[in-house]
């Protein structure tokens, strides 16, 4: 099974297992895909077209929350010599699409992220009497350093660190699936080839496999 399928199998199993927490009588008549009263894209969507955030379900973020979300995206993935920052390539739109989706996993992240964005502003006010977007880079870093690694976060920052971990994953996933992110990683596949030649000699040399037989 190829890697993306495999990752999805694990994700899928996790929500299958999560379903076992649903009360027994409800589960007996299982079979509903999305939560009651909400609609996802259904079990038979058009796979060949492109989708934009907001066209399948309404988005959530207000202009003020979008600004906070963008500022945090760019703390996680700022511009550098290789690629632009996350907010400039649509990652905020993606995060909004994600937290607005009707599925259980996304609804759980929605709670965490909306709480976390509010926490970020409250913490900025507490420390610097400013919104998060109004902070200097050093001030943003001071807050993020306290919440960027859950295993070492102080107890009072544990919830915020949980939020930051999810937000960093979504920002990274959102960014590296854009054309800019794909270029940044120098992924050169997804193009038809007439032959598959395997790793070039310089790759084998670097790994110490230059003597390996080319079967």
């Amino acid at each position: 099974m190829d890697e993306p399928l495999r990752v999805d199998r694990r994700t899928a199993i996790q929500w299958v297992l999560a379903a076992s927490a649903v009360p027994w009588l409800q589960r007996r008549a299982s079979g509903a895909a999305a939560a009651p009263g909400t609609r996802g894209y259904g079990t038979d969507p058009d796979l060949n077209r492109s989708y934009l955030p907001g066209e399948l379900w309404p988005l959530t973020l207000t202009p003020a929350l979008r600004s906070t979300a963008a500022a945090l995206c760019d703390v996680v993935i700022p511009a550098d010599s290789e690629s632009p920052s996350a907010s400039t390539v649509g990652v905020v739109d993606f995060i909004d699409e994600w937290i607005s989706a009707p599925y259980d996993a996304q609804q759980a992240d929605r709670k965490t992220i909306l709480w976390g964005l509010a926490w970020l502003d409250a913490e900025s006010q507490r420390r610097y009497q400013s919104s998060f977007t109004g902070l200097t880079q050093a001030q943003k870093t001071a807050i993020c350093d306290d919440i960027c690694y859950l295993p070492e976060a102080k107890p009072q920052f544990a919830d915020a660190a949980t939020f930051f971990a999810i937000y960093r994953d979504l920002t990274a996933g959102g960014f590296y699936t854009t054309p800019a992110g794909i270029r940044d990683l120098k992924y050169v596949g997804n193009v038809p080839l007439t032959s598959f030649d395997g790793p070039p000699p310089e790759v084998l040399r670097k790994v110490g496999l230059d003597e390996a037989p080319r079967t």
Partner: protein
Amino acid sequence: MPFVTPATLRDYDVIVVGSGAAGGQTAYTLSMSGARVLMLEAGRNYVPEHETPMFQTRGEAPLRGASTPDKPFGFHDATVDGGWQVPGEPYVNATQEDSGRFDWWRARMLGGRTNHWGRYSFRNGPYDFKPRSRDGLGFDWPLTYEELAPYYDKVEMLIGVYGANDGLENTPNSSPGCLLPPPRPRVSDLLIAQRAKKVGIPVVAGHRAVLTQPLDYANLPARLHPGNLDAQRIIAEHMRTRAACFWATPCGRGCSIRATYQSTTVHLPPALATDRLDILVNAMVREVTLDKHGLASGVSYIDKLTGRPGRAAARAVVLAASACETVRILLNSKSSRFADGLANSSGKVGRYLMDTVGSSVDGQIPLLESLPPHNEDGASGGHMYAPWWLYGEQLAGKLGFPRGYHIEFGGGRNMPSLSTGAGIEWLTGGSYGRRFKEEVRRYYGSFVYFDGRGEMIPNEHSYCEIDPDVKDRWGIPALRFHWKWSEHETRQATHMQRTFAQIIEAMGGRVKGPILTDGARAIAPGGSIIHEVGGAIMGADPGQSVTNRWGQTWDVRNLFITDGAVFASNADKNPTLTIMALAWRAADHILDRMKRREL
């Protein structure tokens, strides 16, 4: 008029229920040899040539292609109207304990799960048909590897399987000219092979149903259909329409250029070209109907588009609906003559349900960091694998569990996804900003995964039956599952964990997460590997099995089963190739008996 409606059904020799690996192969073999066949499929028509998202990036999909309850394997996965839950089609677990649950995958679409499967295509070996004779556990099959080998050859030639003949124990070679050349290994394959060898594990070319070169349409047709010039002409024409792999796009999305095996691109088009196959889609089969002699007269079904019941008739009926759906149809086919369900005089219908033992470990390999960019898409799945290698130790009682597993693995610079850069705090210590970007670049392509796929031994506690209360949206009674792993499986799962950690360490890498020493936690839940088989096992004793060696039910001589339900054991080898070989053999038998007017 190959796609028919309830109003345009004709007279048929054989009804085939299901359109996946079993139904596709059965219908192909029957119609290519002259039988008139009606295939019923519970899902909609599906046309891979038009519907497959071949080059779409994840950025074009909702939620960047993430897994959702609507699309469990991600947005671009080929499966439509399928998953572990299908709206309106419930099933029940008898217990809520995680260790006792079985999750039932279905794909309600033409071609079924063959549209998205991993394409791993392994032969069972000689031991795998006689496991009880070797270690006293489970059941022997009423046939030998040698009897099935010619059909493995035929299936490999027809669908196209890459691989090599390595001559390893219980890992059979194919006849000359059956296999296509394997793809060149990726760098992670070569490193894994080198280091696994140091810890005693052989790594060889993988076997997958992907065309690494065009099929030999000049020579294969005569080997597939000796003496049948019509069939040879049709399959030769069809083989010419299948392109070789162009080394891009994940196989799980399906393949619009027909470079991989899917029933919808390989079995059904030539069968339709005979003009002897009709297909009725959106037809949910409820029961096998009987005539006054107790023989199968056809099936009753619900037309899902109108909700109306319908009937179809034929001289013989083949169930190929997938193991559990076939069991459900049998148990729902109750009559005064068969009060406990059809073909169930043994009481064995629904019994001995099996899945594959699955366990996984991921690792990060410093040697694979920051490699020069190069294209590693390849044939999308595994180019190499490790067949089970400890037969001797096992026979000597040194392992503490009786049956084996093989290892599927991979790594490389895959098309970036939502998981790229996610969950790497264990390596970065929680970095963000420019350092994080540097670290994502460094680690991208340096991860490897190992998936164990092992044999489950049938037991009395893993079975399904009809739930007394729950019905689906058409009023058809639903299945209730009972499930239990034994220590044979859980011990194997912990062996997988230790072994994969050993390989990762031999590669100089770091294991992600803890190595699970509790087998109940190490083993993937029942049904999650989607290799469910059994439920109507074949055997030599009518009192202990549901069908004979031909998949013919003991109780109803014109009722056959050609899907995984007949498996008497579930070797570590992924079941699809064996399902197809058995289906071809059963279809040959049906043709033979029809010629002799015995059906």
